[in-house]
């Protein structure tokens, strides 16, 4: 499998674990999964990208779409566990200025 996505819900935090490569082939699957998320003001949506081994602009596009939806619904979105490579992509595109991003090791 080139991309795996699974959800874990603890209280008001919905964690989304994304594993593998995000490109034009796998992005539709990711988009579909993320679009199924119920957004609410009380809930924090946390995307764990620590196991994303590759990502390009198609992945950024998917996250921007989710970010727009979440913001529109007054929800909360956080990206966590970004590797240096993935963080760099958010930096050079200016997205790290807009989105709530946390770098570093995730707690297993």
């Amino acid at each position, binding site marked *: 499998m*080139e991309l795996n996505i699974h959800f874990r819900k603890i209280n008001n935090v919905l964690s989304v674990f994304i594993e593998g*490569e995000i*490109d*034009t*082939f796998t992005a539709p699957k990711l988009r579909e999964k993320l679009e199924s998320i119920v957004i609410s003001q009380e809930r924090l949506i946390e995307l764990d990208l620590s196991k994303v081994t*590759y990502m*390009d*602009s*198609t992945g*950024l*596009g*998917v996250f*921007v*779409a989710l*970010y*727009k939806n979440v*913001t*529109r619904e007054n929800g909360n979105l956080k990206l966590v566990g970004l590797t240096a*490579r993935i963080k760099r*992509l958010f930096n*050079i*595109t*200016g*997205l790290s*200025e*807009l989105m709530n991003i946390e770098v570093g090791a995730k707690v297993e």
Partner: protein
Amino acid sequence: MKAFDYIEIRIPAKPQYVSVIRLAISGLATRVGFLYDQIEDIKIAISEAVTNVVQHAYEESEQGDIVIGCALYTDKIEILVTDFGNSFDFEEIKKEVGPYEPNSSITQLREGGLGLFLMETLMDEVKVNSENGVTVFMTKFVKREQVKHRDQTITS
């Protein structure tokens, strides 16, 4: 003796082959002597170029091939991505791409169009010819200090 080795790969313009090209180019870049971070940059740039063709050039017919040509020098890699489909106006598209502005409103945020921007940012040189189909030509040089660093890491 030729100054470079030339490798050409032809694939159908379908999303499932983008990762195959990414892997192949990554292997070729390793041969030239690029280091990890540069190879990762090249992987993104080639994926963006091929993805552009897959998404735009063949929207109508769904038939068509992409040809990827790769010239390997001692100090650089040249990559050519070409299709035989619809051409697009590079300058026009270029006006609409670029990084996000910190103060842009949420609704203004584009969900696409970062591909060309990333190619230009991650490679040393990017040229696009759209006269007959689309041809993207990209170059990346091996950084000298990184070559030294590479020698060190190999022995350690």
